[in-house]
C-alpha cells in the first residue's frame, strides 16, 4: 500500500474517535525520497488526504520553494476554515521523515515515522497543477473544482 494511503486511513480512523474534537489544522513534513519528481505528487496527495480528514474541500493554496531546490511548502485553506502547512523536501539525510501534527479543537494527534521505503500514491492531477501554477506565479491560487 502507498505510504500516504496507509497514513491517511490510520489517521482517519483515529479522528473518527473524536478524541481531539474536530480537526482544524495540520502541520506536516515529508522528507521521504531523493527523487525531486515526487515532491509535487506527495504534496498533492497529502493535501487531498487532509481535505478528507477535514471533510472540507481545499479552496486556496500557496506553494513556495521549488522542485529544483528540492523543497516545496504549501500553505492551504479549506472551505470550512481549516488550514494546513505542508512541506515536502528531497531526502538529504540518511533517515527519512514523515512528521504530522494534526490539531483539533480539543487536542492534537501526532505521527512521526522514518519509513524505509516510500511509495507514492495517486495524486490529484488538478491539485498538482494548482501547486505548479502557484509556484510559477509566486502567488496563492484558487483551487478549481
Amino acid at each position, binding site marked *: 500500500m502507498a505510504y500516504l494511503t496507509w497514513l491517511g486511513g490510520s489517521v482517519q480512523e483515529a479522528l473518527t474517535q473524536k478524541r481531539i*474534537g*474536530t480537526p*482544524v*489544522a495540520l*502541520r506536516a*513534513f515529508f*522528507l521521504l525520497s531523493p527523487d525531486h519528481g515526487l515532491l509535487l505528487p506527495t504534496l498533492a496527495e497529502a493535501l487531498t488526504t487532509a481535505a478528507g480528514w477535514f471533510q472540507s474541500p481545499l479552496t*486556496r493554496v*500557496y506553494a*513556495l*520553494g521549488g522542485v529544483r*531546490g*528540492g*523543497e516545496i*511548502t504549501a*500553505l492551504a*485553506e479549506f472551505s*470550512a*476554515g481549516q*488550514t494546513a*502547512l505542508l*512541506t515536502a*523536501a528531497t531526502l*538529504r*539525510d540518511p533517515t527519512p*521523515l514523515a512528521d504530522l*501534527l494534526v*490539531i483539533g*479543537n*480539543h*487536542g*492534537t494527534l501526532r505521527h512521526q515515522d522514518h519509513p524505509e521505503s516510500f511509495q507514492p500514491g495517486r495524486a490529484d492531477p488538478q491539485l498538482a497543477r494548482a501547486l505548479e501554477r502557484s509556484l510559477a506565479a*509566486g*502567488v*496563492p491560487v484558487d483551487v478549481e473544482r
Partner: protein
Amino acid sequence: MYGVLLIAGGRTHQENYAPLFAADPRSKLIGVVEDRDDRFARSLGLPFLPDLDAALARPDVHIASIAVGLERRGRIAVQAARAGKHIFMDKPLAASAEDARAIVASCRESRVRSHMDTMVRSHWAARARQVVASGRLGELRSIHCDLLFAKGQAGTAPLAPPRREHFPPRRFTFVDSKRELMTTGVYSLALLAWLTNRPVRTVWATTSNYFFAEHHRNDVEDFGMIALTLEGGLTATLTAGRIGWSSDPAGGPNRLLLIGSRATLRIDAYQPRLELYNDDPPWTPPPVNPADPMGFWKSTQAESGVKPKPTWLVDSLASPITEAAYFLDCLDQNRESDMSAARAAEGIEILMAAYRSAATGELVRL
C-alpha cells in the same frame, strides 16, 4: 550599577523580567510605575511610584523595563527613550509599524540602547545558529518554525463561520485573550531574522478562531500560519497560536526545521528529555481563572494552582544567559543588542503585512 525602573508590574511579563534584573549584581530595581496597584511593588519591597514623568526624570534610573499593554507600549517606550533611559522591551515591540518606527527613531535620537525579549538566548536557538554558521547544511533553503502554547481551556470557540480578518487590527490585548499570531509569531520572526539577517520580501498569512470563545468574542485570532519569502530565495514558514492546556505533554510544540542544500536540521526545544510514566494521578488542567483564563501570567497561574506537567523532564529549557544579563552586557560593552528595537521593528512590519494578507487573501510585498 544600573538602576532599573519597572514600567508595569503584576499580570504582565514584568513578573518574569524583574527577578532577572534583581538577580544580576550589575543592576538594582528602583521602583514600579504604571501598575494598577502597589501589590507587585510591595512583593518586591520596592516603592510604588505614582507618576511616570517623575519616575523617568530620576537620575538613578538608567534602564526602563517596559511591559505595559501592547497598545500603550509604543508611546511609553518613546517617552522613556526621550528621557535618556535605555529600554528593555516586552515583546512584541509595538502595536503598529508607526509606533515601532517611532521607538527606533527616539532611541537613535536619544542615543540610548534598546532590547526586546525573545527566545534567541535559548540553547536550541544557539544550536541552530551554530549549525547554520558551520555551513554543514550547505546553502540554507528554508526555515520552518512551529511555536504553539499549550494553555487555555480549548474547545469553546464556534468553528463556523470561519474567521474573517480585518485590517488594520484595532486591538491586540484583552484580560482574557490576545492576538496570538502577534503574541506567539513574534518569537519565530525574531528567530528568523536573528538566524538569517535577511529581509523578508513577501508575506502570505492566515488567521483563525479554532479554540477559545474568549478570542472569538473579542474578534482576535487564536491561531495563524505565515509563509514568507526572504531575500536570496530563502523561504520560511511559521505556525503560531494557543491550542489548549491538554494538547501537549509540555508547554506546546516548539520546534524548528532547517532545510539546506546538503542536509537538514531538526530542533525540538524539548529535546533531549527524559520521559517518566508512573502510577501518579494524571495531570489535569487548572480551573478557569476569570482574571487570566489563558494562563498568561506567572502570578495568576500560581493563584489557579497550575501544576507542572510531570511526564517530560527537560533540563535544557533554561537559557545559558538571561535576557537581562545579555542586555546589561550590551550596555557594559557599549554595543547594540542583536534584538534591538530596529530589528524588532522589522518583525512588526512583517506581522502587519501578515494581518493585511489574512484580511485580503492576497500576497503582501514588503
